[in-house]
């Protein structure tokens, strides 16, 4: 626009205050979530811009925001279901860096902004099945993990992808006691990681992730038990051999590397045949658990010929 220096802007050029404020709020939100210019405590949940993805979303009604933010496992903040929401206030998800290492052409440390920049965010409404036999429906906001991994150009030796959670005992009180070996580590086979259902989430209900749900960046693998979906990721490593995973280290006879939701393979101590849907009310009976948490059509082919009771 060409503008003569001696006159102010046309009134038509002036952005109405509401829009201007809205835009500022959005920018601040993005800054808070992506760049880290604003202390996260000031803006606990900023709006994100995203598109829906009905193709990969369930039509089931999502759980309430309150249920999702107040009832979950994140042992770094304590082993009670309400510990994550009650004890994650001191956690600072910004600024954030992710190290990329291992069998890939592009490695190094990237800011969260670098990680997210090229990816369009989308909403994926997924079922989540916890290994403890309860389940939820969660509207995540994120992007396919595979799209990110391709940017690092993994080489032919990259058969697995390993992830690591941040280690900050001063901000994560659960890490002060070795309930599990810290930091938490998880892993996927490369084809699982590249699967279009596998996403990295940065948001929930259209807003940035609350600390207790794995801010600022977490994995979501909807056909596996929830503990596979590692939270607050600081390292992504391409490996040739199957990487160690925290629950498998803790109790190998109970938690395998694959941890696919499977109603036919019980946990040694409890049945996995049914689950309780959180939010369905105290008088709602359990519902049957579906093979691969209902994603069998999309993912069963990944495991053709494998004995899933052996590779649990």
């Amino acid at each position, binding site marked *: 626009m060409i503008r003569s220096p001696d006159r102010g802007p046309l009134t038509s050029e002036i952005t109405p205050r509401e829009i201007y404020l809205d835009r500022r709020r959005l920018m601040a939100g993005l800054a808070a979530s992506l760049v880290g210019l604003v202390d996260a405590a000031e803006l606990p949940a900023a709006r994100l811009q995203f598109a829906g993805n009905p193709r990969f979303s369930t039509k089931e009604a999502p*759980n309430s925001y309150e*249920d999702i933010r*107040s*009832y979950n496992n994140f042992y770094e903040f304590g*082993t009670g279901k309400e510990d994550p929401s009650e004890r994650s206030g001191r956690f600072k998800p910004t600024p954030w860096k992710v190290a990329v290492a291992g069998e890939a052409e592009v490695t190094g440390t990237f800011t969260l902004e670098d990680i997210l920049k090229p990816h369009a965010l989308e909403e994926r409404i997924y079922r989540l099945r916890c290994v403890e036999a*309860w389940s939820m429906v969660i509207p995540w906001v994120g992007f396919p993990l595979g799209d990110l991994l391709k940017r690092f150009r993994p080489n032919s030796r990259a058969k697995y992808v390993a992830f690591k959670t941040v280690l900050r005992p001063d901000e994560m009180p659960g890490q002060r006691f070795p309930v599990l070996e810290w930091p938490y580590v998880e892993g996927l086979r490369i084809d699982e990681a590249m699967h279009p259902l596998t996403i990295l989430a940065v948001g929930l209900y259209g807003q940035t992730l609350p600390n207790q749900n794995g801010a600022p960046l977490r994995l979501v693998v909807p056909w596996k038990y929830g503990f596979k979906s590692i939270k607050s990721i600081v390292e992504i490593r391409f490996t040739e051999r199957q990487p160690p995973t925290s629950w498998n280290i*803790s109790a190998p006879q109970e938690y395998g590397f694959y941890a696919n939701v499977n109603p036919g393979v019980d946990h040694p*101590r409890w049945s996995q045949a049914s689950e309780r849907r959180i939010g369905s009310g*105290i008088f709602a009976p359990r519902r049957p658990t579906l093979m691969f948490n209902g994603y069998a059509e999309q993912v069963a082919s990944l495991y053709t010929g494998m004995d899933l009771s052996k590779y649990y």
Partner: protein
Amino acid sequence: MRRYAKPLLFALCALPLAWLLLRALGFAGLSLGANPTDELQDRLGDWGLRLLLGTLCITPLAVTLRKTWLVGLRRMLGLFAFTYLVLHFANWLVLDQWLDGRAIVKDIAKRPYITVGLASLLLLVPLAFTSTAGWMRRLGKRWQVLHRLVYPAAVLGCIHFWWQVKADWREPLLYATALALLLGWRARRTCQRRRAALAAAASALDPLKAMGRGA
């Protein structure tokens, strides 16, 4: 103090149950959280086990503090423990399993932590039933023998808790330690009594005297 002990203890024991009830009814914005069935299950179990261990504290306390009247509180504590554990079991049967007979039987048979939990509760049934003064009188000495079933019941209760935690064994360890101390105190006391009884018997049948008589 003695006069108010019973009503006070009653109120204290009823408090967790009242609190759960208020939360279940949504009183003043309270709630049982996102997973009310599991919350009821866990809290009822917690209090059942705590009160059971509390019951086992009475005798050591009464003996060490030399306050025999404390023993008068034991029945109420035990019955409260039993009440919480029955509700814990009923919640599992009804709200968790929806009275699905097949699933219930399968779980009891297949899941060791449920098997030992149920065994613990079943051991307590005759104790609750015979807790009245009438039954104490009728059973006489056998009453005390019968009521020693509380020890295996508490052991199984601690195992039941231990076997279901995923990785954080701190709380079950606390209860197991408390139980070990309480049972250890009793074992020591029994040993001391036996030794005293043996010594008394020995002095009554002094071998030297006996030999002297024989010579």
